[in-house]
């Protein structure tokens, strides 16, 4: 089975005061119908990778790749207009904080319908019914109320569910979630993650989760890519995380306080520029 997303030697650079600065330096991976985690610290280039996949890298940035394929479509040959129709329809992104991603002056229901109407020629009444059903399936208890609500009337958990509902309305094959739970309380994180699992992966979609939190990614994803300074330094199965080989991965894994393994001093993460070049 061909992967949903194939990335080979992806590079993104930005012009700086002294020449080009490479934010992403030759990243390759495939995404199948699975949960793939992309872990890195801020500045490692993880969000830039997501933007490059959606062709949303801001202006002076230069993106190149030996291969960038979405569901068999070569993204390097796709025009800007075609890319617009692919975004949302085939590949979608869920952002960190729903409060900034929802339009404050448009009702939630309207925004959910919008994503569908932008890509399909369904009747508005039909889409409305779909939107209500989608709200129900993302676990909103009272879809009719939320449908007519505005962003400021929602709680954080509801906001993120609505973002997910919005993204799923156009039934994209690939879903990118950039820090989907870091704005949420611990008690809501699990719910949102299992929602993503139910609605995306169990229905044959590919999910790329981007996070700085190796613990979260390891407990949720099938595979993990560890990014350091714009390069993937280790790629491993989530259940093998305890046996990670790379010192950076091991340090990230140990740096988080754990309820089960008390330590007096938390191990810190060493940084070695050589890792980015090997």
């Amino acid at each position: 089975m061909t992967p949903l997303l194939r990335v080979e030697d992806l590079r993104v650079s930005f012009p700086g005061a002294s020449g080009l600065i490479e934010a992403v330096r030759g990243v390759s991976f495939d995404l199948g119908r699975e949960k793939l985690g992309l872990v890195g610290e801020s500045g490692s280039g993880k969000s830039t990778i997501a933007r490059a996949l959606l062709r949303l890298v801001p202006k002076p940035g230069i993106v190149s790749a030996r291969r960038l394929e979405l569901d068999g479509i070569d993204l390097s040959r796709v025009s800007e207009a075609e890319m617009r129709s692919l975004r949302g329809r085939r590949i979608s992104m869920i952002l960190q904080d729903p409060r900034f991603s929802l339009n404050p002056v448009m009702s939630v229901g309207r925004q959910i319908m919008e994503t569908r109407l932008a890509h399909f020629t369904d009747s508005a009444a039909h889409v409305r019914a779909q939107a209500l059903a989608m709200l129900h399936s993302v676990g909103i208890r009272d879809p009719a109320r939320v449908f007519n609500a505005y962003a400021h009337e929602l709680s954080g958990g509801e906001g993120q569910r609505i973002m997910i509902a919005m993204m799923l309305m156009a039934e994209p094959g690939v879903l990118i979630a950039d820090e989907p739970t870091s704005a949420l309380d611990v008690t809501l994180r699990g719910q949102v993650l299992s929602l993503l699992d139910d609605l995306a992966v169990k229905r044959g979609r590919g999910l790329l989760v981007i996070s700085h939190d190796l613990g979260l990614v390891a407990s949720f994803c099938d595979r993990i890519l560890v990014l350091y300074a714009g390069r993937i330094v280790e790629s491993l199965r989530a259940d093998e995380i305890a046996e990670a080989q790379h010192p950076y991965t091991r340090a990230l894994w140990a740096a988080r306080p754990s309820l089960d393994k008390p330590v007096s001093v938390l191990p810190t993460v060493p940084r070695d520029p050589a890792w980015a070049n090997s």
Partner: protein
Amino acid sequence: MSDVLALDPRSLRFVKSIRDLARNRLALLGFILIGAVILAALLAPVMAPYSPVAQDLANRLLPPGASHLLGTDELGRDILSRILFGARTTLKIVSLVAGIVAPIGLLIGMSAGYFGGYVESVLMRITDVFLAFPKLILALALVSVLGPSLDNAIVAIAATSWPIYARVARAEAAAIRQAEFIAAVRLLGASPARILLRHIAPLCLGSVVVRLALDMAGVVLTAAGLGFLGLGAQPPTPEWGAMMAAGRQYLTDQWWVAAMPGFAILGASLGFNLLGDGIRDFLDPRRNQ
């Protein structure tokens, strides 16, 4: 976002701003116009071919020509020289008004915004009272009470234009008050005066400067208006508005007597307007997104 911050964002933004400002042709034109007014004011004694007050009744109402580039007025005074010296009067009014209005408005607005409660209610109601009157009419009333003179015109204009700065500063201060860095210095034991002057004022200054730049065109016009009505600078001090007023009765035959100072007023107010627009765009944080 943070993934691409490898290049120093501040220097980048600075370079970009300079470029944008230069690219903004209209702002550049405004800059040139105001530059010309300032130059005229500074170099008036050097540049002016004649004394601005010397009367020469033999040569009254001469049309623009070789000896008098912009002609002479009803008392035979050289109009070019009077316009050049008039720039001093205008700039004096503009800078004094700005110098009075900005600190007063800032202080009142910031105090209202920072303290809130009763302080805010009292200060902002006073502000509202001033805002409720049309500016020019209030200025007229004030000058009539104080007596017509240049200084009183400045006082009148200042007294009528500070409220808007208080409004601007209040809005900014009320937002900044909530910031955690203000909470942090409060916990350090800083006095309200220190917090207002050292922490909040610098952040309000940006919007006040923009407002000031946009308002200066209006100040030029109000000053000229008061001069025109004989309530501003008194003769023989050269002042553009008063010059226009004097030229009014010769408008049909000796148009230049009124028109030349009119062009000067137009140029100066247009210049301030364009420059103000430019500065606003320049300081607008949204521009950098």
